[in-house]
């Protein structure tokens, strides 16, 4: 069990803000940290890693990492951290990057085999693609068999197809190592596939937490499906109005009424939903 109760004054782009978060994370769980940019997700992750100072308490399986200003140095926390830009050691080969953490050749070979990197083990990071670098970063983070794995938007720089592939790999590794994992992510489908719990941060506070299904699925009442999107344009054809909305990776057209067209503003986020209509005739 990981108990987190930390606070820290942040000087964000939109003025000063107090990060104040209380959380419990169960052993072996996979928690996604979501929220708008500037809500303090990355800072919270860095505080957990010991890369940034904070007030409060962090205790992991009874071990106190932070209490009354006394902080366990990052080196002694035994965590894995996947940086957004991977931060591989450029002067070392893939295998050397892993062995730098612990000289456990068997574990390194095993991780490389799991992530299909064995053939690339002697390459320098500068000669790897984004997806390959990401996998090396993940393997390196697991080399210390960490109690806690922290990932800062690990897949944000990759294209959608590569994301899906790597999500599966993260899931495989999570199942095999059963590492308690906290991941910062913006992508609802990613969160839904990977996480067992979502914590939504806003302005440095926990706004919402629960299972991905409860937090992310926006349908309620009699709606049968509901999609979130961004309103790109409203086009008038004769007497009808057509809204062009970007949902996920797709653009869709939806017919709207003249009164709706007046109220909606371009660029706003909208929800497209429909109710069931199934007449029954006896």
């Amino acid at each position, binding site marked *: 069990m990981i108990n987190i109760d930390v606070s820290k004054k942040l000087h964000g782009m939109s003025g000063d803000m107090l990060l104040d978060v209380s959380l419990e994370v169960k052993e072996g769980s996979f928690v996604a940290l979501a929220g708008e940019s500037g809500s303090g997700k990355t800072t919270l992750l860095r505080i957990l*890693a010991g*890369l940034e100072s904070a007030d409060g308490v962090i205790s992991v399986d009874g071990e106190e990492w932070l209490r009354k200003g006394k902080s366990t140095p990052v*080196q002694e926390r035994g965590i894995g951290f996947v*940086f957004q830009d991977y931060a591989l*050691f450029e*002067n070392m080969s893939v295998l050397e990057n892993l062995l730098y*953490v612990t000289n456990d050749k068997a574990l390194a070979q095993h991780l490389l085999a799991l992530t299909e990197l064995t053939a690339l083990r002697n390459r320098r990071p500068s000669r790897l693609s984004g997806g390959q670098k990401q996998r090396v970063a993940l393997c390196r983070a697991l080399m*210390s068999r960490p109690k806690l794995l922290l990932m800062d938007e690990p897949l944000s720089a990759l294209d959608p197809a590569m994301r899906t592939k790597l999500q599966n790999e993260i899931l495989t590794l999570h199942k095999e190592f059963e590492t308690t994992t906290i991941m910062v992510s913006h992508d609802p489908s990613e969160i839904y596939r990977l996480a067992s719990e979502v914590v939504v941060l806003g302005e440095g506070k926990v706004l919402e937490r629960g299972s991905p299904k409860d937090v992310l699925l926006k349908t309620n009442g009699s709606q049968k499906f509901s999609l979130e999107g961004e309103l790109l344009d409203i086009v008038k054809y004769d007497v009808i109005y057509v809204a062009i909305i970007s949902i996920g990776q797709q653009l869709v057209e939806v017919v709207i009424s003249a009164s709706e067209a007046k109220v909606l503003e371009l660029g706003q986020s909208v929800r497209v939903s429909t109710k069931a209509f199934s007449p029954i005739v006896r």
Partner: protein
Amino acid sequence: MIETLANLDWYPFVLSFELSLITALVLFMTMLPLAWWLSQTNSKLKPVIEAITALPIVLPPSVLGFYILMALSQNSPLGKFFYETFDVSLVFSFTGLVVASVFYSMPFMVQPLQSGFESLNKNMLEASYVSGKGRLETIFRVALPNMKPALLTALIVTFAHTVGEFGVVLMVGGSIPDETKVASVAIYEFVEVMDYTQAHIYSAIMVTISFVTLLGVYIFNRQQRRFL
């Protein structure tokens, strides 16, 4: 001509290179922690320290030489201490030259190292800390190997700059043959006594060595960039 070359006194060159090598090594060991600190700190003292370490670039060598002479002479507490304790005279001696050169060439070691450290991806250093490695291991196994051009520039330019120093050396060391008479001072003396043949030979040797050294640095840096 061949006879002149055969009878050439090579000792000023030996002295120059010995002095430069020792200076570069002393500066590397002492300035590495300082450059690292400067690259990582947000302290209000940082600009003050940066200004002090950059001073030798702008000061006339005579000013530097004068102060060093004052500080190291046997009339000063420091000079007296060294003379009485270690029986070492810090002025008009090789040891004194090393001390003076260390001050004179300091910015050429600090600045490339500092900017090298600053250009590194901070996350890469943090990744090393997360991997359980301390600061020393991070510097030697991650930071320095990823800034080889800066490292080489710092070492070679410090070395070359010390070979090329003249004013400070003359003031602090004088021109004692086989002790403090380095190549640059030897050339000055040849010119003074109008022995232009020797002055030509010495100068040509200096130009050649300096050019080859710098060329080597630039070629290395170019290759490093191509591999990245």
